[in-house]
């Protein structure tokens, strides 16, 4: 243990602890900006500078490890003046149109300004000196350089968590900026639209592209029938933007709120998640049969899940030779969209051209996904507008809804019913667990051999998880799998996905089936979820997801009555011709820059 004094208080901490963390132990708050729990230390904003006795200069508390006998002061005049200068300097480069800004009141720079730099500013406004660009090219997010304070959180996110490095620091001195490859539009580079940078940007420089107004317009258009679907991970995070602590499940209130907002039908992406299991599970079993029994060399294994649009775009840019390994299943959002304007329209006797299909997603890549040209199987744009969890919270506030006092409400029927297997799609490992619950039962006629259906080896925050399931006692149709060991892997965060892809490229991936989610923790840590994010918050959301599962009446996708009904009434059977038309897709190779 290392002993030191901070503001004359003694503290003992482990070797390697930063001064910032040691101060936190003493409940002494040191302001930070470039620092983020998920990322490596940068030490570049200099907001967290403190005074160390005997040192010539101030030190960055986030970047300085403690040493024995150190004496630190966090609030001397020297520190205050320097900190005030730093904040004012950042503001002088920053287009501070706060009242118009999407991040107003959810901006770390604004909070610092309130604390340290209120009132008259000394320095000259440099915004006009910079030829700032605002990049609106992506359907998912906006990159506004005039709000960028160069903390490099986005750059570190893109490289450390996501491996992509679609953005990097470019130029130097006063021209330094965060740039894509040679300033190309974000829509034309390797960016996966995952939005993890949006989650970590302390200002309004990176924000999702909002479609709130378009959705209001649709709701108030008497000609339109507006359906809304909600992704599994939204219900365990929405509360955070409405005054709840992380990990609170607000499913019933959310459904009620959506109805009050004026959506004609409040439906659940969980329905199409269950459907995904049927389609994807069948696809896997068919692939296994072709490969193992028929000896078909053209079958690509391992098969990768395809629910995460950031992951899909990652593959299209980085590993195009493995596109055949991706499941052809659309994501639950897009399955839902394709059915909303076909099956649902037919059932409800609606003109599909009058249906506006909205989805509430924990994701910003879903906005891109909905815009893909492949996603028009219904003859229309299958999903018209994608809103993030954050945008839904904004709408609820705009409508003046007293969320906390809402009664719980249930989803509407036809494509509103779901199971616990669908809910857990929201956490890393969830799709795998749901798939195993169903596939194992199809093949053996018995439930998966795990207590209370909880397949624990595929759960948790480990970057790459592996599991082997021995298949025994197969029913006749699947006898060829008798005794087989099904090897699966799960990765979340593209840095971990890349580890598996590297192995795959080297021919060293022994897996049959791999689940990959682009975001850390899976959708619960998605780019559209409430800000801030960190491992503790994501763990709480994950816990809530599994609690949601346990509380469901049905917990296996193939038992979902709405799913059974749609196969009986409309799709015939999994991987049918109709399914392929509406629920499956293909992928395109993209440039690697």
């Amino acid at each position: 243990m290392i002993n030191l004094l901070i503001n004359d208080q003694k503290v003992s901490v482990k070797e390697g602890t930063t001064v910032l963390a040691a101060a936190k132990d003493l409940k002494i708050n040191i302001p930070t900006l470039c620092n983020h729990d998920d990322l490596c230390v940068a030490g570049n904003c200099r907001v967290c500078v403190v005074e160390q006795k005997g040192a010539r200069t101030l030190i960055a508390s986030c970047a300085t490890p403690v040493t024995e006998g150190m004496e630190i002061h966090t609030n001397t005049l020297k520190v205050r003046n320097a900190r005030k200068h730093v904040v004012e300097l950042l503001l002088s480069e920053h287009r501070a149109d706060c009242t118009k800004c999407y991040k107003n009141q959810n901006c770390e720079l604004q909070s610092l300004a309130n604390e340290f730099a209120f009132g008259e500013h000394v320095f000259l406004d440099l915004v006009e000196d910079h030829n700032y660009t605002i990049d609106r090219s992506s359907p998912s997010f906006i990159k506004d350089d005039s709000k960028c304070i160069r903390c490099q959180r986005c750059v570190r996110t893109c490289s450390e968590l996501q491996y992509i490095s679609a953005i990097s620091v470019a130029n130097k001195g006063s021209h330094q900026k965060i740039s894509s490859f040679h300033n190309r539009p974000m829509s034309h580079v390797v960016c996966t639209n995952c939005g993890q940078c949006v989650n970590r940007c302390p200002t309004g420089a990176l924000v999702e592209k909002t479609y709130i107004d378009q959705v209001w317009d649709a709701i108030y258009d008497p000609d339109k029938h507006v359906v809304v679907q909600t992704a599994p991970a939204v219900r365990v995070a929405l509360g955070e933007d409405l005054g709840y602590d992380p990990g609170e499940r607000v499913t019933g209130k959310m459904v009620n709120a959506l109805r009050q907002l004026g959506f004609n039908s409040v439906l659940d992406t969980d329905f199409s998640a269950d459907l995904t299991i049927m389609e994807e599970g069948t696809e896997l079993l068919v692939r296994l049969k072709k490969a193992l029994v028929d000896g078909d060399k053209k079958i690509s294994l391992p098969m990768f899940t395809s629910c995460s649009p950031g992951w899909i775009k990652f593959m299209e840019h980085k590993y195009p030779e493995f596109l055949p390994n991706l499941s052809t299943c659309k994501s639950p959002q897009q399955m839902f969209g394709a059915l909303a304007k076909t099956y649902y329209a037919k059932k409800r006797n609606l003109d599909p051209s009058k249906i506006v299909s909205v989805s509430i997603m924990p994701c910003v890549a879903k906005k891109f996904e909905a815009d893909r040209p492949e996603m028009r199987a219904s003859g229309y744009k299958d999903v018209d507008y994608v809103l993030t969890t954050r945008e839904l919270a904004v709408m609820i506030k705009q409508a003046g809804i007293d969320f906390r006092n809402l009664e719980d409400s249930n989803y509407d029927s036809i494509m509103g019913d779901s199971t616990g297997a669908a809910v857990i799609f929201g956490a890393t490992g969830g799709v795998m667990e749901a798939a195993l619950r169903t596939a194992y039962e199809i093949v053996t006629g018995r439930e998966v051999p795990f207590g209370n259906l909880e397949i624990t080896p595929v759960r948790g925050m480990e970057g790459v998880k592996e599991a082997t399931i021995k298949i025994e006692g197969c029913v006749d149709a699947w006898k060829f799998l008798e005794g087989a060991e099904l090897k699966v892997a799960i990765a979340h965060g593209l840095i971990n996905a890349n580890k598996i892809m590297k192995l795959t490229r080297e021919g060293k991936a022994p897996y049959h089936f791999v689940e990959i989610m682009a975001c850390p923790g899976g959708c619960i840590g998605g780019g559209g979820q409430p800000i801030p994010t960190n491992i503790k918050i994501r763990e709480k959301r994950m816990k809530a997801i599994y609690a949601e599962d346990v509380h469901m009446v049905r917990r296996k996708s193939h038992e979902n009555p709405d799913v059974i009904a749609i196969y009986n009434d409309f799709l015939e059977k999994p991987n049918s011709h109709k399914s392929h038309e509406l629920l499956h897709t293909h992928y395109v190779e993209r440039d690697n820059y």
Partner: protein
Amino acid sequence: MENKGLTKVDIIFEKIDPKEVLIKAYKMTSAEIIQNMLDSGLKGRGGAGFPTGLKWKYTAAEKEPEKYIICNADEGEPGTFKDREILDRVSTKVHGGMAIAGKAIGAKKGIVYLRGEYRYLLPKLMIELASFHKMIKEIGFDFSIEYKMGSGAYICGEESALFESIEGKRGEPRNKPPYPTVSGVYNKPTSINNVETLVTAMMIINHGAKNFTQYGTKDSRGSKVFSVSGDTPTPGIFELELGMTVQQFVTEFGDGDTKAVQVGGASGFCVPRKKFAETIIGFEGVPTGGSMKLFNSSRSMYNVLHNYLDFFNEESCGQCTPCRVGCQQLLKGVEKVKKGEAKSTYLNELIKLADSMKIAAKCGLGQSVGNAFKSIVGNFREEIIY
């Protein structure tokens, strides 16, 4: 204060038999070499002035078997050109100093980081390096040197930025600690020394530490090479004993009308005429990596300051707030004051900013911008305003 007067010395370019010196060093232990450096009192010649013996001692003490000795030849400080001249004329002594340092700290690899602007020297240096390698092999040294080129970035002279550059990255200074002696290039213990320091080290082995300490003052031992430019009839490089006053320097090199001397380059200090006599050139007064620029009364100190600030605006790496934005504010601020668009009292705010930059910037560059700014504005306020 000790005043040694102005004495020309010939050590750096002195003709020696390098092989003889290297054989002598080869026969010494690591501890003996380091003790020689400690006894000599040699401080780094790049400007920061860290005791060379200590740097070697710390690096030698590290257990990691892979270590590096780096020769910092990224001479970018405006007004310095001595390292180019040293490399051009006595590269074998530079390489020799590296081999000696390598022996002292236990490094088998040396890297010379040469600024891109000096690339024209490379073909000649490669030939000289080849014969050097041959010579030390004959003596028995297990040591080799390679050259890495810069590509036009002043900040890469900062040691940790230089490591980043060698590693193929943007030359952005790292957080310290860890210090280079613990974790430098490739995260290995590294001793990084200026070109001139390495030559001086070799000459200390040649002449002995005692000989070295007879030159200079208590705080600034020995002699060093000065790059003299600006308003002087005799621009060029000169090796002088440390410990002279600026007045003595100006008497020798001035054109009779010197009103200010910028000691230590753009990141150094501006000494006005009224302080010439009281200011010692050395670590007890104004430290310098060798850059000495003289300005006569025909020069506008506003133009000098503006030129420097423009330089920093372009050459700041841009990663930390105080330096990236602070430099812009200082430049734009003095422009506004000059044009009369800001009150002259605005300079006081800028001086406060310069003070914050000195203590809050991440690296030596950002911290030192304030030096030039404060010393020019402080001494020539009228010229900045009117």
